[in-house]
């Protein structure tokens, strides 16, 4: 009997450890599919193109110097919407930041001159969702006007900054990888 009680005590202690481990598993929350994000952000376009850009070491260095961020993907993919005459309507890129609470993936829409037209959070995690949720409903207005001034809690503000930095990266990548190469037309 004493042995059985000891066994139960060991099981209980290990169960608590399992609980601690399980608490760190954060399932993803997928808010919108890539196709739906693109259909919204490239609205008005009649033809769609994929432009893939592999940065030169010099371009990577220039971005790192400007922002402190080192582009580390092998290549970056822009989805470009054009009208019937072949003029660029908008371009969209999906970028992800991997935080300790899980990934935040954002689709950023840019005009032909690199102006940010909009941003959509497409994926985050169950843990980050409550922090980011206040940003999602008035998303566009928040990102353009109220970043950091909306009375969000600290985590909400932190994730607002993460999303803001992803938008800046998107703009920079389009500028360096497309506009400055003369490929924006």
């Amino acid at each position, binding site marked *: 009997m004493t042995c059985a009680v000891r066994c139960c005590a060991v099981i209980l202690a290990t*169960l608590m450890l399992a609980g601690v*481990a399980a608490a*760190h*598993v954060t*399932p993803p929350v997928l808010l919108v599919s890539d196709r739906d994000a693109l259909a919204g952000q490239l609205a008005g376009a009649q033809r769609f193109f994929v432009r*893939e850009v592999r940065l030169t070491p010099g371009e990577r260095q220039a971005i790192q110097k400007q922002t402190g961020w080192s582009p580390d993907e092998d290549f970056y993919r822009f989805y470009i919407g054009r009208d019937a005459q072949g003029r660029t309507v908008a371009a969209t890129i999906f970028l992800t930041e*991997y935080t300790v609470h899980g*990934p935040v993936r954002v689709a950023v829409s840019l005009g032909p001159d690199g102006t940010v037209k909009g941003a959509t959070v497409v*994926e985050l995690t169950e843990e980050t969702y409550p922090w980011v949720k206040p940003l999602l409903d008035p998303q566009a207005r928040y990102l353009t006007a109220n970043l950091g001034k909306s009375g969000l809690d600290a985590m909400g503000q932190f994730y607002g900054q993460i999303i803001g930095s992803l938008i800046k990266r998107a703009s920079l990548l389009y500028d360096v990888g497309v506009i400055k190469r003369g490929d924006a037309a």
Partner: protein
Amino acid sequence: MYGVHLSGLPPSGKLFCTLFLIGIGCGALAAFAQAATAIGLTPSDVQASLAPEMPMTHMGHGPSSAEKEISIGDISNTARVWMRTPLLIQTSHTHLFGQTLIAGLLGLIFLFTSLREGVKALIVALPFVGTLVDIGGMWLTRFVWPPLSALVIVGGTLFAVGYALITLISLWQLWLAKEAHP
């Protein structure tokens, strides 16, 4: 083991083991549903989430760019998890800890069943091996050869079979077997 057998546990011990096994089963079902909706349950689904992203255009090696016309229908309309290296590291550390602890607790209960040592060793190893094959398969898919995504399915199946055997045998010995031990 050490003269203690599941069939000889007091009612509180039997209840504890039973509820734990049922709870883990419910958790496993929820995990299965999550895997099915977020990633998919076929090797090709796993490969699509884990394998390195390949260019859609005919972009060569080295600094360059390329463009290709697509139809908006070519883009996935299903929300899918893109598991890149940082997320793979995060998933590996949580699942290796979590699943190994679950396998350990299941094994701890199972050690007190009255089975031959060889059979017991084989069954108790299944959830551990399944976990290693599952997580190892993810890394091999990403960095070695995408078709190795089949290992992720094999690993998950081994874990599930191990859990099912451990639970069925343990519950049978807890509540239905008589107290006669080999």
